[in-house]
């Protein structure tokens, strides 16, 4: 079943006097339960594509259906709600709130979710955050601040934060870029495990080794999907 359906997506940027065609007629379908990577060199348009899939950015032209709904016609509030409910982000630089504990970081998306779901009481939020942190193997360190955690642990907090609202899509932008190879391996194993449990995982990377861990690889060049392969 198609979870993500991109139809003829274009995106232009102006950089000084130069007009950059970051995405040039991209059409792609990603199904529920897929384990996909988007690979490409810097400037290939992969990050722009990720931002559009993650509803952080809007396409210049074309249509994007997420879970059967046309997102290009959504208001800013609706986009926020979709990001909250359907998408979990994992970033290269973790993007944790530095002055909040691991637990507080993981609770944050649920606090915004409580606007839509009145059942989310403070107690339930706490319980679910602890459960999710346990799931990524961080139970003993829930009250630590991000700078008291190792890189791998920080990325686990970020993954827990991405998962806590039970999103359909886990969107990871260079998730291992700041980690050593052993930790990278652990994080990738975690993604594989989550995928087995039914989460649709999309990893954006320039690293072929990382990409090869995914079942489906979309290779981008000059704003187009140049090649598609399965491993």
């Amino acid at each position, binding site marked *: 079943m198609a979870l993500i359906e991109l139809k003829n997506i274009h995106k232009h940027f102006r950089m000084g006097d130069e007009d950059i065609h970051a995405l040039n007629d991209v059409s792609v379908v990603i199904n529920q339960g897929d384990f996909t990577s988007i690979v490409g060199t810097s400037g290939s348009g992969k990050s722009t594509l990720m*931002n559009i899939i993650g509803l*952080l950015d809007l396409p210049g032209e074309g249509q994007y259906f997420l879970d059967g709904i046309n997102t290009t016609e959504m208001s*800013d509030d609706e986009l*926020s709600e979709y990001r909250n409910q359907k998408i979990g982000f994992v970033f290269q630089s973790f*993007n944790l709130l530095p002055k909040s504990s691991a637990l507080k970081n993981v609770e*944050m998306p649920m606090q915004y*979710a409580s606007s839509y779901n009145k059942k989310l009481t403070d107690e339930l939020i706490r319980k679910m955050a602890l459960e999710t942190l346990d799931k990524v193997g961080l139970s003993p360190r829930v009250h630590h601040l991000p700078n008291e955690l190792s890189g791998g642990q920080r990325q686990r907090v970020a993954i827990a*934060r991405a998962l806590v609202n039970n999103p359909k899509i886990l969107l990871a932008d260079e998730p291992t870029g700041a980690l050593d190879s052993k930790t990278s391996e652990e994080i990738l194993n975690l993604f594989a495990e989550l995928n087995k449990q039914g989460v649709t995982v999309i990893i954006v990377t320039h690293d072929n080794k990382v990409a090869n861990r995914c079942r489906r690889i979309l290779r981008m060049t000059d704003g187009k999907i140049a090649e598609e392969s399965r491993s």
Partner: protein
Amino acid sequence: MIFKKILINSTEAIYENKLRSALTMLGMIIGVMAVILLVSVGTGAKRYITSEFESMGTNIILVQPGKTDKKNSMGPPVSSSKGKLTMGDVEALQKNATSLSAVSGVMFGAGVVKNDTATNNINILGCNDQFNRIFNMTIVEGNFFSKEDEESGRRVVVLGYTIRQNLFGANNALGQLVKVNDSEHRVIGVIKPTGDKLGFNVDDMVFIPTRSALRLFNTTNLFGIRATAKSRNSLDDAVADVASILKERHNNEEDFTTITQVTMMESMNTILNMLTYALAAIAFISMLVGGIGIMNIMLVSVTERTREIGIRRAVGARRSDILRQFMIEAIVISVAGGTLGILISLVITNALFLFLPGFDMRPPFWILPPAFLMSLFTGVVFGVWPARKAAHIQTIDALRYE
């Protein structure tokens, strides 16, 4: 996100930046303190002057010769008046004005009082036996004039306390002769020292019967008439009474002006209110400065936390959530500052009152709610712009912000 959670988050954010928050609050604390203290000074001064005014005597009516159409003024300039008030007018009022409890004609002039020991240049006030009741004057030695003293224009004098001290020092003053403008007068009384009351110092004056004064200054025209109504409620009736009696005697022409303590208080209050407003305006400016301080810090905070804003937006915060978060932070800072400002100014004024009871600058209660609301309002007004700026930061740019 619900309000309570944002409030908790905001309080945490403020706590995480203790020093900066405290300094921002300081601006608000000073602003609110300025509002309260300056208004307190204004109302305290008003209270002081009012009580001084009232201690001079209550329900006083002044009748001055001449007429001006202006209300609430202190009457026409004395020398320019064409109307005349005489002893006959005073007697008519004493006889016919039932709403008055005391009436006295007054004659006022500069002069010299001397005996063998000292010479004093002073103000001489001619008045009758009822005058001390009109102005609440207490006699400490001897007596005030009697009715006979007044009616026969005896050469007797009642001294202000300073004059008495200058002329007689530790010696007995009663029964002694002093020269008032070269005419010998016998001292029959001394007035209790009262100090300066709104520029009118009884201690530096001498009092002689009206008729003696008229003779001394060689005139038949009084400086004015002073009277007191039986009660504050009957003051208006008393004024009407005085006016109708005098008008009848003056060929139906109102060639005099009546001034009551109420009208004098009104014009005094106008001035004092202006003072209070002027102080409030100064206080308002310091509040404004405090507000700008909050805005400044909130703008810094927004810039510094751009990445946090990006993260929050990425995980699903709506623009309104971000707006509310920064608004509430600004309001928490300003309201906390305002509350502290109120408390500190209460402590200061009450401590001052404890050590200097004569100097009551305790703030009137009515200023406290507006002062609090103003701090809240300042937080809202100066929090809006930074919060709107925060809410409209582009998410992708914010996530990349270093």
